């Protein structure tokens, strides 16, 4: 058990535990805060994968914006300060069964592929992932088109969200 494996196991346990708490806790604000913990765990996983830019963007975008949006939405859609009623719908055991089946299916599928036990190759020296990523995002023979389309999508979402949630008195 190398140190890297131990660290990965701890982080994975933390992330999966927080994820489980997100979907089972009754108090919705607690669920949003467990989501923050899960997102932070995922950011640490990105850092373990040497994707530092993705880790920081995960914290900025997910924790700094999306999780805050969730907390606001939870607080704005409660009739009073307490939670009401059961948080699982009537057929929740079917949902659990489907989730377990999906996980088992994916696990079984992954077992049959022999590329799984490969370990990471060393990163070539002098490789600047951030510079390469920047080049890939704006270079015409790389990914500039999905980049621009994503920005159009964000503008559309911005306009749509403001229009839908606008309080017309």
């Amino acid at each position, binding site marked *: 058990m190398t140190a890297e494996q131990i660290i990965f196991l701890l982080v994975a346990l933390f992330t999966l535990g927080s994820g489980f708490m997100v979907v089972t806790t009754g108090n919705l604000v607690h669920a949003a805060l467990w989501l923050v913990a899960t997102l932070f765990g995922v950011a640490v*996983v990105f850092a373990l994968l040497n994707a530092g830019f*993705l880790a920081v963007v995960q914290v900025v975008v997910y924790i700094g914006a*999306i999780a805050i949006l969730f907390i606001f939405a939870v607080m704005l859609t409660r009739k009073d300060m307490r939670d009401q009623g059961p948080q699982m719908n009537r057929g929740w055991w079917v949902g659990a069964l489907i*989730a377990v089946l999906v996980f088992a299916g994916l696990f079984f599928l992954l077992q049959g592929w022999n590329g799984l036990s490969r370990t990471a190759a060393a990163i070539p020296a002098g490789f600047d992932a951030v510079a390469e990523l920047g080049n890939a995002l704006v270079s015409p023979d790389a990914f500039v088109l999905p980049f621009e389309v994503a920005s159009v999508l964000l503008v559309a979402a911005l306009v749509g969200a403001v229009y839908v949630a606008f309080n017309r008195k």
Partner: protein
Amino acid sequence: MVPLSWYLILAAALFSIGLFGVLSRRNAVAILLGIELMLNAVNINLAAFWRYGNVLHMAGQVFAIIVFAVAAAEVAVGLALVISVYRKRNTVIADDIDLMKW
């Protein structure tokens, strides 16, 4: 050294947990929380394959960044819709938003 399979199993487990959340929760906002978990699982998968494949080929990270943008857009519009529904119908329980059922 951490083998690739560990990352993929982590992503699969997170995806299944998110799926359970989407299928079993009553509150519409809680369903959106489950969707976020699933999107994060996909991102872990993409980043892992970038790292364990060809590091010089940036497609994995670019795809993950586009997923960030799409997730942010979806959460914004989804929560706007939920808040709008709450204003009209005064409930966010997904079962009670059944105006079009016959």
